[in-house]
């Protein structure tokens, strides 16, 4: 088709996600959606300015990429440092790091569901944008809003009780942890568990009810099949802290299992695109076109054979029934998957807090530079995260590669918004609620653009209709 017949719709910025982005929707001359592009227009440069620093500084520098998932960066980073030193953390050090990581998973998922997404479900996609947020939710559904806010607080309090800080913590050190957990703090955290479980279960009820009431919409909401990548334990169980990787295809067939994350370059490649600072990673053996894969809660539940805890396992079985045991492709189910993971995280946190070694003072082994290369991997709330460092023989970084969850979801996000745009947008006849659904497709992935390229923004939505010659022919604003 001749380009002159096309029009573009621009959604900028996309709101209620972490960071700034815009969406361009390309229309053909019949007013039908032809393609949609997700642009990330931020640039951070961490990979470049970390060059020249000592590798041991990375567990403190890289968490500054993001205030939502700093622990995952710290964990991936410290594992890379441990590979460079050739050491393993102590049992208690490892347990404390796992606990802090679970806390972050709880707080990040609570933020994504209760603060950012629940207003859509409880107030409606077409409700007044001025109240379709956590404050509007607090006015109409106080228990849910307060529960969500407190669940996030619980997640952050785990970090605070161990390290003294809620967000950008220090103390995650090669070989373990710098700070122990006191008995007083252990008991204080344990006291949170019943309330946290109740709030997560409340969230699960909300999402299940919404799924039942909107079965038709969800069944057709950005359902393009993709491959999936996620971390699993030794027996294929769900894992977010430490394990190997599993790729499955769209039918659920395991393509590769128990992959050592340190060999990620053997199975993941990246390509740059001209319209975004986000790269396009893909599953190397299948190439750029067929190798699109997704990461994050939906992917982790799709690749996992089981959950590690009983309540989460029961929900996992219900999740698996959605597509008769096959992978669930509906992007909307990211929310359900996220809540199942939150439930699992609260249950696992309780198990760890009851471990007799959790308050031990044997929290760190010590090492020194031994290898010039280190690769660390963790499951961040938004998906699999890789840190790859190369150093000179003194420990100074000469190359840094950070493969971020949102980057890996980038090709799928484009595909999802194209699906949704095709379904909901028809030429110039665009209503606010429809465009919000396009944004909503992005929000399902809970993208963290800060991580992948970063800034938090809550700005008015402006949609511009631009013809192929660049002239503005119409504007819709959401103030």
């Amino acid at each position, binding site marked *: 088709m001749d380009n002159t017949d096309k029009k573009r719709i621009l959604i900028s910025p996309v709101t209620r996600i972490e960071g700034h982005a815009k969406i361009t929707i390309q229309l053909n001359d019949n007013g039908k959606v032809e393609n949609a592009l997700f642009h990330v227009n931020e640039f951070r440069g961490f990979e470049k300015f970390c060059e020249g620093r000592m590798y041991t500084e990375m567990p403190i520098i890289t968490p*500054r990429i993001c205030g939502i998932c700093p622990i995952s960066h710290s964990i991936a980073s410290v594992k890379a440092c441990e590979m460079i030193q050739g050491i393993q953390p102590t049992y208690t050090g490892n347990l404390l790091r796992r606990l802090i990581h679970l806390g972050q998973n709880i707080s990040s998922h609570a933020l994504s569901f209760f603060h950012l997404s629940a207003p859509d479900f409880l107030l409606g996609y077409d409700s007044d944008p001025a109240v379709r947020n956590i404050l509007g939710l607090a006015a109409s559904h106080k228990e849910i809003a307060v529960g969500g806010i407190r669940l996030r607080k619980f997640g952050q309090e785990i970090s605070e009780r161990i*390290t003294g800080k809620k967000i950008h913590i220090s103390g995650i050190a090669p070989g373990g942890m710098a700070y122990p957990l006191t008995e007083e703090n252990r008991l204080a955290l344990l006291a949170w568990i019943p309330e946290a479980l109740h709030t997560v279960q409340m969230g699960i009820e909300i999402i299940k009810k919404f799924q039942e009431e909107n079965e038709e919409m969800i069944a057709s909401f950005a359902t393009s099949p993709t491959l999936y990548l996620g971390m699993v334990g030794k027996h294929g169980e769900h894992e977010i802290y430490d394990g190997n990787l599993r790729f499955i295809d769209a039918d659920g067939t395991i393509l590769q299992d128990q992959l050592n994350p340190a060999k990620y370059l053997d199975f993941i490649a990246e390509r740059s695109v001209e319209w975004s600072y986000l790269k396009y990673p893909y599953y190397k053996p299948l190439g750029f076109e067929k190798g699109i894969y997704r990461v994050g809660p939906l992917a982790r539940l799709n690749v996992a054979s089981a959950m590690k805890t009983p309540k989460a396992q029961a929900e996992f079985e219900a999740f698996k029934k959605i597509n008769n045991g096959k992978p669930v492709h509906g992007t909307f189910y990211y929310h359900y998957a996220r809540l199942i993971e939150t439930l699992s995280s609260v249950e696992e946190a309780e198990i760890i807090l009851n471990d007799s070694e959790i308050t031990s003072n044997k929290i760190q082994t010590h090492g020194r530079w031994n290898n010039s290369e280190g690769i660390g991997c963790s499951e961040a709330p938004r998906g699999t995260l890789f840190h790859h460092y190369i150093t000179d023989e003194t420990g100074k970084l000469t190359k840094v590669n950070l493969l971020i969850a949102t980057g890996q979801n980038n090709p799928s996000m484009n595909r999802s918004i194209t699906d949704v745009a095709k379904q909901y947008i028809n030429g110039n006849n665009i209503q606010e609620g429809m465009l919000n659904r396009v944004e909503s497709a992005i929000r399902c992935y809970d993208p963290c653009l800060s991580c992948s390229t970063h800034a938090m923004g809550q700005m008015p939505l402006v949609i511009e209709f631009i013809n192929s010659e660049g002239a503005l022919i119409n504007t819709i604003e959401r103030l």
Partner: protein
Amino acid sequence: MNTIKITINDTVYDIAINTTILEACKEVGIEVLTICHLEGVSNVGACRLCLVEVEGINKLLPACTTKVAANMVIRTQTEKIKKYQRITTELFFAERNHVCSVCVANGKCELQKLGYKVGMDHIRYPYLFPSCEVDTSHAWFVLDHNRCIMCTRCVRTCAEIEGAFNWDVMNRGNQVRIISDFNTPWGQSTTCTSCGKCLHACPTGAIWPKAIVQGQLEKKPEILKELVEKRKMNL
């Protein structure tokens, strides 16, 4: 002991002769801000934080290198002095690349404490953002020029306490740098004894041990003075 009478902040004190204003203030419990001063080594008056007003002299004098004189009238807390302390502190931060949040010395840094002390809520001068080397060549320690404030405490400690003379200073103005030997990588120094005294002397995160991360840094500058005192005892 021969003493003289001096006035500090409107109070008269008997102070021993040959005492510096800084020592006199410490003796009578008056706080004077310093950062290049280190107990156990000589004073050089480099940081200009300890400037005081002396009646009859129309310029500020560094308390660490100025000795008391009979009937001297000294003021340490005037608005002018506070203004200069704030300016000096801001210039420290503007000159190189101090990022407390990711610094190994965060929470343990004398420069950071100084910033709080003078009420530095912002910096009025443009950051220079110089390109500074991080010397990781030593087996145990790192020298990060980004965080160095040129107090020269490491230089004086190495020369006067360890006697190794590994550290020195080269260049002038904002190009000034601490160097090891004749500007060789620290790890290749033929004079460094790897004693680690410079680590304890350093007031910021410019010199730190490779084995630790943020939250684990322990600097004990007081042990340097103890060493000097023990040597004097000739045990």
